[in-house]
């Protein structure tokens, strides 16, 4: 949470092999990556290069084959050892933003966001209060009582970002968050992610193909055949 020591993301020598024997696929062959708190980095690479695999490892939904991962201040994986409660890890340490917003259709905007603190055992009122603050910050507070199906694509994505942020996780993983949006809205999303990263000292990884937003990153990791190499980005400001 917000007051926790946060060292961002540290990945060293991470590998992931799907399957075994003749049909084994080495999706990650040694990934090294560092993201500081408050930083937004891009992760780009051709199809099949291992972007989603890396995100799933970081998101603690699949287990890497070797290497080490540190999120926030916790080692979550090191050479076959992993922390026990992955569910609580995801809930408290990782915010997810997807290509599609995947809001819960039967909860209104506020409760879609407030659900996470509620799941972590916070009282409803406090959770909603926190959700409203974020919705305010993301400029969708006026739609707080609407159902997700009544929102525009951009509004939905902002609600999804609010949901990813609400537990103040040290890490946010965003998978193609701007794909369905036009260039103006895409840049707006990136602007918000940057602002939130600064404000809450969150380490954010954005997986993207999106030419519109690539110039905005200060640092970009390229991934190819399961290996990463780092590159300075343009870090273009977009105010």
């Amino acid at each position, binding site marked *: 949470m917000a007051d926790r020591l946060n060292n961002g993301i540290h990945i060293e020598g991470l590998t992931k092999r799907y399957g075994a024997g003749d049909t084994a696929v080495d999706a990650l062959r040694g990934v090294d990556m560092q993201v500081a708190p408050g930083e937004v980095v891009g992760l780009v690479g051709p199809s099949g290069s291992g972007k*989603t695999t890396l995100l799933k490892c970081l998101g603690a*939904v699949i287990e890497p084959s070797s290497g080490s991962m540190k999120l926030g201040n916790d080692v979550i994986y090191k050479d076959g050892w992993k922390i026990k409660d992955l569910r609580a890890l*995801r*809930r408290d340490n990782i915010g997810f933003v997807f290509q599609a917003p995947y809001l*819960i259709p039967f909860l209104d905007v506020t409760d879609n966001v407030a659900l996470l603190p509620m*799941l972590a055992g916070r009282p409803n009122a406090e959770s909603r209060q926190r959700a409203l603050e974020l919705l305010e910050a993301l400029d969708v507070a006026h739609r707080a009582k609407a*159902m997700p199906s009544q929102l525009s694509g951009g509004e939905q994505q902002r609600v999804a970002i609010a949901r990813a942020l609400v537990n103040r996780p040290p890490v946010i993983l965003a998978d193609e968050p701007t794909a369905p949006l036009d260039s103006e809205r895409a840049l707006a999303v990136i602007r918000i992610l940057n602002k939130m990263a600064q404000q809450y000292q969150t380490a954010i990884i954005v997986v993207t193909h999106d030419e519109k937003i690539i110039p905005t990153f200060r640092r970009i990791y390229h991934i190819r055949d399961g290996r990463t190499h780092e590159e300075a980005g343009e870090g273009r400001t977009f105010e």
Partner: protein
Amino acid sequence: MISLAGRDILHAWGKFVFTGVGLGLLIGVTLTMAGVYRGMVDDAKVLLGNSGADLWVVQKDTLGPYAEPSSIYDDVYRGILGMPGVERAANVTYLTMQVRLGERDVRAMAVGIVPGGPGEPGYLVAGRQITRGHYEAVADMASGFKLGDRIQIRRNHYTVVGLTRRMVSSSGDPMVFIPLRDAQEAQFLKDNDVIVQQRRRTAANPAFNRPGVPGLLDAVIASQSNNSFVNAVLVQTKPGHSAEEVAEPIRRWKRLQVYTRVQMEEILVAKLIATSSKQIGMFLVILAIVSAAIVAFIIYTLTLGKIREIAVLKLIGTRNRTIAGMILQQALGLGFIGFVVGKISATLWAPLFPKYVLLEPGDAARGFAAVLIICALASVLAIRAALKVDPAEAIGG
């Protein structure tokens, strides 16, 4: 924490209500089936209660008079009257037949009673009891007869002088009470051709028509045209005497079968309507299975439609328990809607049934518990599917 199940139900209330109504009608049928059974048992008890008898004296080794034919001489009651503890005793006959009113035919049980004796209907809703020895009748309301109607039983006409209710035979036919003498005659009545033929046969029999014995033939013929049998004797015991205490000497000394109220109830419930109750039990089992299948199918389909949301919920750290609870609560919610609809519809249509349908609160409570259990079991399939969902699916490709 908010109720995910409740929110989902509110969001998709149309689906839930429609399914709930469908399920509810099934549950209504189930409750009604149980009510039909309870009604039969209650009819039997009311029948015994309203007859005003404490003991039923019937033919030896029979389960009469309702479950098996029984026939005893119509003067036996005099001997019984003299037994210790007997307050009153009266003959009674039962005969299921068609009773005519003008062009209409009603299936009824004609009960021959001694006016003023045990066996008379316990109370009347209109009119008066039978006072004359012949050609008056008291009918159950269910027969549709009115005061003053002229009904026909076999060859004789009767005036309806009184109406009673909840007096039906074990097969649900309304009872029509008539004087014992008339009933005995109706039971035994032969058509004129048969009487003529029988007289000729008797006259042709040398044993009955002896030249040296004048009057023998007439006596034999008179005895043939006279029914001196009844089906049972109803006995009321004196206050302070237990039924069993009075029954035992009658069994022993009169060599007749005697049943107390408790035993009679046992015969009616366990023997007479045993097959019907098994039939109803079978229906209940099938309805339970069909209801379970419907709930399982609906909940499973609804859950499959939410796989994506469930993956997201898991990814953001929702416990399996919470997700299972959500599905279980939805199943229970469906069951609850179904039960409410079922209970209301059963209450609405129960009075329309030709036979008495008794909806007992106890049955409703048991039914409610059964519905919840069935719904919980039916949600297992959907819960298993939901628990198998991989949170990685939310991240996609």
